[in-house]
């Protein structure tokens, strides 16, 4: 078994353990994921973009 196959098998096993959470727990995980995404999106939109240059 090569390294990539081993890593993928570990990933698959880890995903299976996450499927076994209860539905309410998974919904709560999704709420956290969404909060993190919204914060990242807000941070990105407030950051000045590099290609905005003032022209005379």
């Amino acid at each position, binding site marked *: 078994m090569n390294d990539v196959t081993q890593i993928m098998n570990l990933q698959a096993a880890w995903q299976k353990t996450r499927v076994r959470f209860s*539905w*309410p727990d998974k919904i709560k995980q999704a709420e956290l994921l*969404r909060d993190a995404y919204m914060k990242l999106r807000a941070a990105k939109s407030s950051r000045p973009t590099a290609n905005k240059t003032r022209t005379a």
Partner: protein
Amino acid sequence: MRKVAELLNAMRQAGVISDYALFGAAAQMRYTEAVATLDADVLVAVQEVSRVDVLSPIYAFCAKEGYHHEGEAVRVDAWPVQFMPVFSTLTEAAMREADTADFDGVPLKVVRADYLAVLALSVGRAKDFARLLALLESSSVTLDRIAELSREYGLYDSWLRFKKRFLDE
């Protein structure tokens, strides 16, 4: 989501809607791992289907309960909730055949995996195909069941295309 469940049950009890079922990513998570989603999608059967503004009574009920709409969704606790009136025989069946799940002690009607899969097939965006694959991967629905339902709702060609593209080596 508990508040969403309470609101939907209250709405049905008050006769604002005759039935409902959660679908989309929030419903998918009953069968798969948690996925990122921005809102909760709910199929609803409204009493007065002839109204142009079919969602108005729903928005009014939500406002009375203290939940206000933001764009096309109603913010309920942490969740923007999108209400979608049933619009086809497929969505009607998906709602009618939905399971009643328990969400932290509150009953919540949720579309079953087989109907979620065929609804995803009918919409056909990349994220819908990903949902269909995730449901198959979780063994919550079989290829035969999707074939059967897709035949019933005129989606068999879409199913064959999906199968050829993603499942047949």
